[in-house]
């Protein structure tokens, strides 16, 4: 590390002092913690105000209006809308009589993001989860004889490199399509052979997931997942009182 300026050395010690102040909170609330807490909150407010000005207010309001005044395209005047809405908010906090003016910016922001969030949630949370829940629960084993690199890579014990080596060996004809065959593949490095060995297993490992038949452990897991999802959905049903007995125990489970 290049040697530091003196002021940076002092800064490092201040950082250590503040760290110990906050850790002292673990013992109990004390003046050192109070000092560090209030200084931290104050500095974070100053950081935010400066950052919000230079990253939002300056480019999106001040520069836009300046461009508007400088005879730019009419779109620059659009920046007047947020300015008016902002002044309405200031009026609301200043005078009680004209507080109703402040309703417009609040209505605008709350309604806009309520709408945007409805769609975001409908697609990203509801839709995506329904899609995942609807998957085929009959999982077949991956046939090492025909599977492509993309099909092989997610298997336990496989990496993209191992998958390519298996496909190459298969094309060259010298390959036994079983988990044992993969581990015994001459072209593997011993690190890769270690990875394959780690993930062998007849219940959940490579042996169980490769072959021509069905991957039973996967099927059972999928059924459990489906049943678990449906029962959990029912658990939260508002119209059913079935949860009365568990409400009491759940209440006490987390109450001390």
């Amino acid at each position, binding site marked *: 590390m290049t040697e530091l300026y003196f002021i940076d050395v002092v800064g490092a010690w201040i950082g250590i002092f503040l760290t110990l102040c906050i850790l002292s909170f*673990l013992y109990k609330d004390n003046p050192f913690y109070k000092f560090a807490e209030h200084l931290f909150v104050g500095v974070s407010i100053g950081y935010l105000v400066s*950052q919000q000005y230079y990253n*939002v207010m300056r480019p999106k309001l001040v520069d836009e209006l300046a461009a508007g005044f400088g005879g730019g395209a009419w779109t620059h005047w659009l920046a007047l809308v947020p300015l008016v809405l902002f002044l309405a908010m200031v009026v609301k906090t200043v005078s009680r009589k004209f507080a109703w003016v402040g309703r417009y910016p609040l209505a605008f922001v709350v309604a806009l993001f309520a709408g945007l969030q409805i769609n*975001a949630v409908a697609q990203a949370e509801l839709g*995506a989860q329904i899609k995942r829940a609807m998957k085929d629960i009959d999982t077949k084993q991956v046939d090492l004889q025909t599977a492509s690199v993309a099909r092989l*890579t997610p298997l336990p014990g496989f*990496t*993209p490199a191992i998958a390519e080596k298996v496909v190459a060996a298969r094309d060259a004809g010298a390959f036994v399509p079983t988990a044992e065959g993969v581990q015994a593949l001459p072209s593997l490095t011993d690190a890769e052979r270690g990875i394959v060995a780690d993930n062998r297993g007849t219940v959940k490992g490579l042996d169980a997931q490769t072959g021509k038949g069905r991957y039973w452990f996967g099927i059972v897991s999928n059924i459990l997942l489906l049943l678990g999802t449906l029962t959990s959905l029912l658990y939260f049903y508002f119209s059913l009182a079935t949860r009365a007995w568990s409400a009491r125990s759940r209440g006490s489970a987390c109450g001390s």
Partner: protein
Amino acid sequence: MAAPEPKHWTEKLQSFDRRWIFLAMGFAIVLPLLFPINLPIKPSPMVQAGFYTVEALQPGDVVFVSVDLEPASTPELEPYFRSVMLQLKRKNVKLVIATTWYAAPPLVERWIREMIENPIAPEGTPGYTAPLDADGKPMYDRAYKKNEDYVWLGFREGKAAVISGLGSDLRGTFDNRAADGTPLDAIPIMNGKKQLKDFKLLVLISAGFPGIKEYVQQVQSRYNLRMVGATTAVSTTDLAPYYQAGQLLGLSGGLAAAAEYETMVGKPGLATQAADVLNVSHLVVILAIVFGNFIFFVGRRRKARR
């Protein structure tokens, strides 16, 4: 008033002061740093997948790096950042770096000065053997030059809206200029890069919201992007389904995974040392649970017998 009956040791235990546990946790964190145990670290599949995806990059490829974190998540994410930067720089991959977190810029700028504008593991670094490239020469990383080997785009406010903006119009979102004001058109590695899909790979380092989840939801499926990522331990369970669904080509979650990534890159550092701390502190939490149950059962049997 007769002296109160001496408290049975089980009752004394009931009011066990939790600060002893804090002390135990304190020792569990400090001691392994002083006396490393170096337990073996075996990379898990998700981390390996991420490593190999980055390893498959060719010299001259351009990668988009989104560093969405704050000082609090440095312990878990800086080791990954250092390792993946070493891996990218020694392959001479060009970097376009940006952030959507307002608390990140000074931190990322320091990392750029320390790890990108200076070599991380130049020739002769003790304990580091550089991998060999196609024709057998050892690949070392070098000092990257601003606006030639890497571009720092800076921060833009708007959280998830920024990410969907990057997907459709990256240059517009950054007003066509880098953080230091240089117009993007004047930067060679930026030509032909108008949207996220123009980048070979996206490396997402995210400590929470907005982060990998928003990148997957907003732009991954719409533009079919190739993405690898690193996140904090607490969000790993939230993001693992995206790896299983194939939307993320690799994910390294938390300090343990960062240690695994360090061993794969071949330069053990902070995370490897801290892995021991992780093991011991997990032990303390387990002991706390067991001890808590012990106190509970002892107390209950005592009450039952009285």
